[in-house]
């Protein structure tokens, strides 16, 4: 009658019935009244059970409806959010065209497609038309010169946009290829400058260039051979088809572990990126880093990337409590030795393991002047803070003056996780991943758990 799982091992025979879930497994041992010994008599309780369950579920529905708003994201005063669409797939990055049409890349195929196109016909913020196209999953997406650019983890391609139509021409052209398959940090996020160049993030398939990677006490390969093909930003001609990473591609910046958050700042006219800092200092070097240090180190670094720059991965990491670049333990560091190679320092640092997944410079006029030309950063949220509470899972703002931050960073949108304590990333209902600005200065945020898109607007 019950689904019994019987286990036989050297310690004897155990059975665990489904009843065990409800604490009833002990009854077989207890001296229950003889009335209860026959299972048939238990059926007498059945109506009571059913009524109890119906009442419980009904109450649950009501309370869920009453509190749905509490779970929405928290914004500064004057800002409101609408949900543009929900459950569109695992949304990664987002691009909004000048007519308001929205395009989102997906981490996994949904309805057999890797890109979602959305249109709001009646201007209420909510998508009325949703279409799927493209045969590959991926991360990068952007609109440039009448084309929709998209990247899978191995190729950057573009689709010709048709004026007035939501769907582009469905046959893509390849712009850049030859990126090796990469099981860690594979996202080829990209951005365009003002001079016809395309910049592509080529993350390192590694944590700290150990071989084998992510293992206790393994030294780093020296020099790290991965830097030849990975761990940097590669630049391409944005308008030329069929380029290969190692032939036509130019390594613009190196020593970057993975910069999913990569964006050209059109006002300062520089490239910026926020790096996913290395993981697991405590797990692999417990004699140098306590659990707390592993949780709080290293800082996530925000870089201004000039041509030819070296940001130090895998030899260094950034300690924000000391404001110093430190030598990585894989290369002889112990948490106390400073880096002497002169690798680039960040322009700002964020708490460890927050996982920056997008960066956007706000050039719109809708938001208050405080936000003008500043940077929004979407943090996907940590996993390497376990066993302590996980953090991030928010969108923050950094005010800017010219090409530098002009003040402290502040949380802009919060509570994406929807739970008070995030003990495992799996607890979070949403993990912010992509940012875009709409034609009238609204901010769009997309996330990759449920596939929700928010449009954030400011009203006086």
């Amino acid at each position: 009658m019950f689904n019994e799982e019987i286990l036989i091992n050297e310690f004897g025979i155990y059975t665990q019935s489904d009843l065990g879930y409800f604490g009833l497994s002990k009854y077989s041992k207890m001296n229950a009244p003889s009335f209860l010994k026959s299972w048939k008599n238990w059926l007498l309780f059945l109506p009571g059970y059913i009524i109890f369950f119906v009442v419980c579920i009904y109450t649950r529905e009501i309370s869920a409806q009453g509190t749905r708003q509490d779970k929405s994201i928290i914004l500064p005063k004057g800002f409101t959010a609408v949900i543009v669409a929900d459950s569109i797939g695992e949304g990664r990055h987002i691009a909004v065209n000048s007519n308001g049409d929205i395009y989102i890349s997906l981490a996994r195929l949904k309805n057999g497609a890797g890109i979602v196109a959305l249109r709001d016909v009646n201007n209420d913020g909510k998508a009325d038309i949703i279409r799927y196209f493209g045969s590959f999953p991926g991360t990068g997406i952007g609109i440039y010169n009448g084309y929709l650019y998209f990247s899978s983890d191995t190729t950057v391609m573009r689709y010709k946009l048709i004026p007035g139509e939501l769907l582009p021409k469905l046959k893509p052209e390849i712009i850049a290829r030859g990126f090796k398959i990469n099981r860690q940090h594979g996202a080829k996020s990209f951005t365009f400058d003002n001079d016809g160049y395309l910049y592509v993030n080529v993350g390192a398939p590694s944590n700290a260039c150990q071989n084998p990677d992510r293992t206790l006490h393994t030294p780093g390969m020296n020099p790290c051979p991965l830097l030849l093909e990975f761990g940097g930003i590669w630049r391409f001609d944005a308008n030329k088809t069929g380029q290969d990473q190692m032939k036509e591609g130019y390594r613009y910046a190196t020593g970057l572990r993975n910069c999913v958050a990569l964006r050209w700042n059109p006002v300062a006219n520089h490239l910026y990126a926020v790096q996913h800092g290395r993981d697991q200092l405590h797990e692999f070097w417990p004699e140098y880093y306590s659990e707390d240090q592993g949780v709080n180190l290293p800082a996530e670094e925000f870089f201004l990337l000039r041509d030819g720059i070296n940001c130090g991965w895998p030899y260094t990491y950034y300690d924000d409590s000391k404001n110093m670049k430190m030598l990585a333990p894989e290369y002889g560091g112990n948490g106390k030795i400073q880096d002497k190679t002169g690798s680039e320092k960040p322009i700002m640092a964020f708490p460890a393991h927050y996982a920056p997944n997008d960066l956007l410079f706000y050039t719109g006029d809708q938001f208050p002047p405080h936000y003008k030309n500043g940077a929004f950063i979407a943090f996907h949220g940590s996993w390497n803070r376990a066993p302590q509470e996980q953090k991030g899972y928010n969108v923050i703002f950094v005010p800017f003056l010219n090409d530098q931050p002009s003040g402290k960073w502040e949380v802009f949108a919060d509570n994406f996780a929807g739970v008070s304590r995030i003990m495992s990333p799996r607890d979070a209902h949403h993990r912010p991943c992509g940012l875009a600005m709409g034609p009238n200065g609204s901010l769009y945020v997309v996330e990759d758990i449920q596939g929700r898109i928010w449009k954030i607007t400011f009203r006086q």
Partner: protein
Amino acid sequence: MNCQLPAVKMDKISNFIVLMLFLFGNSENPASVLIQYRLIQFDRDIPENGKLSRTLKNGKEIYRKFCLSCHQKDGSGVPNTYPPLIRSTWVKGNKTKLILVLLNGLEGEITVNEDYYNGYMPKQNKLSDKKIASVLTFIRQSFNNASSVVSPKEVKALRGK
């Protein structure tokens, strides 16, 4: 008959709490209630119960040091990155396959609980047979799994395969 596995012992009060949380708590995601419950379980001491509880205690320590950061405290893993150990057929099923995941590592496309992963797990072959056996026994009897123990002999037989 003894109806309880030491590692999956569920007392009536905590079951009642879980049931109530599930029914009255207004989480959009009932699974997260279960996950939170399992966290409580991880923090709870393993009951004294002879040799098996010693194995489980050792296994839990190995798990904390060598597995927890990726697979998380409650075995739930990280979406799209680290697969869960909760109810995973990799964990509950064939021991040979499971032992080889630890001895040789795992890379490439796999399916866990009908979900797709394409990642890299480092091999754990520097751990002794006894340590591998105890951590595998621990994960097979935690996180809502309830499968048989893995012995050091079984691990030894698969080294180098």
